[in-house]
């Protein structure tokens, strides 16, 4: 039971990370490979808040403040990194963001206050499944509502055609930055939640590989689809565990099978499971009725 709860919780954290990265990569079309860096900032500032400066209020309030601290500090990092990096395009942006996330990790390793290479221990357990999924709902609601307004349309127009967007009066840099800041902010919240549920975080737990895995989640689900990001996050979190349970042979080969499945999916459906579409419950009901 504990194992299942742990898996479900991880799913929640990765849903937040995937949905927020989808805003940057899928919606704004800015190829960022630094999401693990923002996740780490959120986790470490959240953990530092809970250990060094918890407020004299009930734990659940502290949890909310901690998530706020994690999210805001990751957003600030997003502004600082976004302003120079978002002037770059495509591969160059990917390399620059990747570099920044590695810098963040190396800084943390060299900071003794937060445990350095030993990791950050004894973080209070404030978060549980309920809190994580409350934040999942908040993340999805905020991002999907934002996308339905003119700010969201402006963000998508950058992905579609930057020159046309500029010629229609859209300050593309501003909206790239908005997507970047909101996206990194939610990654920070996911980090704080991660810290409060695991109670132990380690800098190498936020390395480059995780940025790639979160990116895989949204590519698998369909770049530009929030539903796709959710489904991709669930599949890629559960898949290795499901393969592990399928007997000793499959378990041994599970990483190979995992990779093969990804390759096959990309061959059959390069646009991802959902493409750019969203799963809409209301229109499905309508279609079923007629």
């Amino acid at each position: 039971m504990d194992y299942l709860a742990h898996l479900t919780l991880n799913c929640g954290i990765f849903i937040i990370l995937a949905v927020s990265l989808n805003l940057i990569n899928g919606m704004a079309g800015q190829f960022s490979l630094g999401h693990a860096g923002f996740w780490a900032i959120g986790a470490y500032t959240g953990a530092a808040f809970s250990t060094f400066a918890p407020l004299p209020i009930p734990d659940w309030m502290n949890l909310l403040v901690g998530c706020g601290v994690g999210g805001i500090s990751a957003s600030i990092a997003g502004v600082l990194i976004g302003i120079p990096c978002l002037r770059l395009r495509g591969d160059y942006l990917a390399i620059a963001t990747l570099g920044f996330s590695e810098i963040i990790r190396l800084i943390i390793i060299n900071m003794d206050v937060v445990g350095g290479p030993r990791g950050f221990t004894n973080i209070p357990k404030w978060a549980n499944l309920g809190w994580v999924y409350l934040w999942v709902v908040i993340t999805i609601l905020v991002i999907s509502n934002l996308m339905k307004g003119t700010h969201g349309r402006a963000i998508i127009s950058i992905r579609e055609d930057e020159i046309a967007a500029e010629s229609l009066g859209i300050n593309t840099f501003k909206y790239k930055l908005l997507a970047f800041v909101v996206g990194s902010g939610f990654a920070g919240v996911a980090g704080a939640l991660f810290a409060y549920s695991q109670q132990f975080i380690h800098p190498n737990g936020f390395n480059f590989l995780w940025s790639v895995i979160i990116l895989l989640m949204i590519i698998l689900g369909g770049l530009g689809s929030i539903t796709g990001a959710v489904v991709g996050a669930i599949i890629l979190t559960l898949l290795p565990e499901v393969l592990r349970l399928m007997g000793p042979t499959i378990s041994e080969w599970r990483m190979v099978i995992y990779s093969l499945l990804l390759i096959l999916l990309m061959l059959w459906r390069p646009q991802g499971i959902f493409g750019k579409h969203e799963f809409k419950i209301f229109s499905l009901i309508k279609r079923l009725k007629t």
Partner: protein
Amino acid sequence: MSGPILHTKNITMRFGGLMAVDQVQLKVFKNDLVGIIGPNGAGKTTVFNMITGIYTPSAGEIILQDKNINNERAYTISKLGVARTFQNIRLFKDLSVIDNIRLAGHQKLTYSGISSILRTKNFKEQEEKLTEKAIKLLKIFKLEDKKDFLARNLPYGKQRRLEIARALATDPKLLLLDEPAAGMNPKETRELSDLIIWLRDYFKIAILLIEHDMGLVMNVCERIYVLDYGKLIAEGNPSEIQNNPKVIEAYLGTSEVD
């Protein structure tokens, strides 16, 4: 009469050693319908790109309603009332037809990102107004039945029309059309000529257009500028241009016998 809406004073664009546009003077007045013609590579689109802020001129001044816009960014110039279409259509292909139009209303909306997240009354009212306006515009362009189609699924002629509609949705004072008739058949081209004249009168805007289809240019434009190798070689009304020896030379070459 007041001065011109748009006045380019000897604008020049150099790309390295290449003189793409060399000291070109254009004047566009209110309600004008002006054409720019010239052989391929004459620098017509480069002139458009300078006016709309995609390039910054190497020399010269672009004056938009008594204001120098040389160093303004493209989105500011759009706010000042210049809209354009592109030679190779640049629609937002994965957005619906109506969203393409709604995007162009972006600068008129004042609600914040927060109010869009919280779905405030202000957000809903402004969005409703925007949608109404977009549908009105789509009706003018006979696209309202296609409003929920993705832009990429429209046939070519309709994509061109949608691009003009999108440019108009920014409420411009000056509309720049870059080869609006490219790839259209004669019937579509005739319809487009009528549409351009009608748009000018209905929206009371000035239109500056680049076009290779001489039929359209001669029908529609009241004044024509001719560019060749980046230089302005002639200007005047259609019949003056048709009989101008320099223009004939640029298009057909000189005879060696004379």
